[in-house]
């Protein structure tokens, strides 16, 4: 082998290195493959090393350029030393034991080790190690290839942390909604207003369900598929379950403001359908369609189209506007939104629109 390393200055490791080279030259590979090996080692971005298991303390006898680039050491600082000089305070002894075991058993092993460069900086090293045999079956070299997987480690840690935070937030939010609910119920009982408390709680539960449904996507940016949100909000009120609900529409921006407005609005529509409309009969059906559109001033709006069918023919506008309707009318008005009711013979139709910048 005549890697360019052989041209470097000789120092105290020189003798060992010469010996290693001599041994390497006795490797049972004919000259053509030797040239190929040399060129491949020089070009590959994979850090490669060979250690001699037959010398005391199993020293490294060959490393390529990528190995030197990865570790920051010069060749003469590497050759002749056991590769443990790359380990440091953060290196997991368990992984090192695994490595030693594999060498003893002549196994191929892959470990991830925290290693240290010459300048002291740490990197995660995915080390693949395996024996290379002589023709007589004895181990000639230990072949090691290493890859810097620090980025992969960081990404894994970030992802783990984000998942942990999501679970924590989800847990706290459920708890918070539960506590609020209890306070309302308790106050209602003690103040002799249980019926009112239950109405308030129904709205709070809708808000809680809606925000819970959106937790999974809360960390992603941009428009989101609202199907899970609408299902969670409306299915509890559909007497025939899935068969009683049709949802049609694409992704929409779902910031928490919009989720709150949607939750309260759809809650009121569903409650009304249960009391007077399609959901007051077993086979009643609601079709909710939605789309994004741009208004005359260039502002994006979300338009919802709620159509009930299969229920009793509506009697027309109620004589007195209910609390729920009042709440959603005021809320939508605050956000430059609109709502219109159409009491058709086949069922109530409601159109709602509001800016997605709400």
């Amino acid at each position, binding site marked *: 082998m005549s890697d360019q390393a052989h041209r470097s200055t000789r120092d105290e490791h020189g003798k060992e290195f010469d010996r290693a080279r001599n041994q390497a030259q006795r490797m049972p590979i004919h000259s053509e493959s030797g040239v190929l090996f040399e060129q491949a080692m020089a070009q590959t971005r994979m850090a490669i090393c060979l250690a001699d298991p037959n010398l005391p303390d199993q020293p490294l006898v060959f490393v390529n350029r990528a190995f030197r680039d990865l570790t920051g050491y010069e060749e003469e600082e590497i050759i002749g030393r056991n590769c443990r000089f790359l380990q440091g305070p953060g290196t997991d002894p368990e992984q090192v034991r695994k490595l030693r075991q594999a060498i003893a058993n002549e196994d191929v092993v892959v470990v991830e080790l925290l290693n240290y460069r010459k300048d002291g900086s740490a990197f995660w090293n995915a080390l693949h190690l395996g024996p290379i045999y002589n023709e007589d079956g004895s181990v000639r070299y230990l072949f090691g290839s290493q890859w810097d997987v620090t980025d992969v480690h960081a990404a894994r840690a970030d992802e783990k942390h984000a998942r942990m935070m999501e679970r924590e937030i989800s847990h706290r939010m459920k708890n918070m909604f539960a506590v609020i609910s209890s306070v309302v119920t308790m106050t209602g009982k003690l103040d002799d207003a249980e019926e009112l408390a239950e109405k308030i709680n129904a709205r709070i539960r809708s808000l809680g369900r809606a925000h819970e449904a959106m937790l999974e996507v809360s960390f992603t940016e941009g428009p989101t598929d609202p199907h899970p949100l609408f299902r969670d909000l409306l299915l509890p009120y559909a007497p025939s379950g899935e068969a009683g609900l049709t949802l049609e529409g694409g992704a929409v921006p779902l910031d928490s*403001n919009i989720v*709150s407005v949607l939750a309260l609005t759809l809650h009121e529509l569903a409650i009304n359908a249960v009391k007077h409309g399609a959901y007051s009969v077993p086979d009643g059906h609601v079709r909710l369609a939605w789309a994004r559109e741009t208004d005359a001033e260039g502002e994006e709006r979300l338009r919802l189209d709620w159509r009930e069918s299969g229920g009793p023919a509506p009697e027309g506008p109620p004589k007195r506007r209910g609390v729920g309707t009042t709440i959603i009318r005021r*809320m939508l008005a605050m*956000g*430059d939104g609109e709502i219109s009711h159409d009491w058709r013979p086949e069922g109530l139709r409601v159109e709602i629109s509001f800016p997605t*910048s*709400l």
Partner: protein
Amino acid sequence: MTEINRPGSGHRPLAGLTVLVVEDEVLIAMDINETLEEAGAEVVYGRNLRQGMQRLEQELDVALLDVTLGRSETCLPIVEALRARGVPFVLHSGDLQRLGETISNIGAPVLEKPCDMGMIIEALQEAVGSAQPGAIRSRG
């Protein structure tokens, strides 16, 4: 919030004042605006930075500003405009931990969400009272 914390119907501590409210959660805005109106104020409302800036064209006595507006905006441009005109304001934020520095740099009274409506009214009264006399507009 219980009824106890709300000002009584006869008590109108903000009578005669025009209050700018900038708040991006419409449900919270609904609650605040109704309370301030019950307290006698005339409320001018903006639900985002753009609307808040537009409302500055009107004559104002005091403002209540949500600090974070939408995903990426803050009320800072409104703060500067109000300062330039000598209109006092109170900050209202649910994000004190993340916005600590931004908020302390503004150097105005801060209310943490969720906040008792009575406290909001008090803070607005105090802000008007402590503003320079010239800044308080006399109204007919």
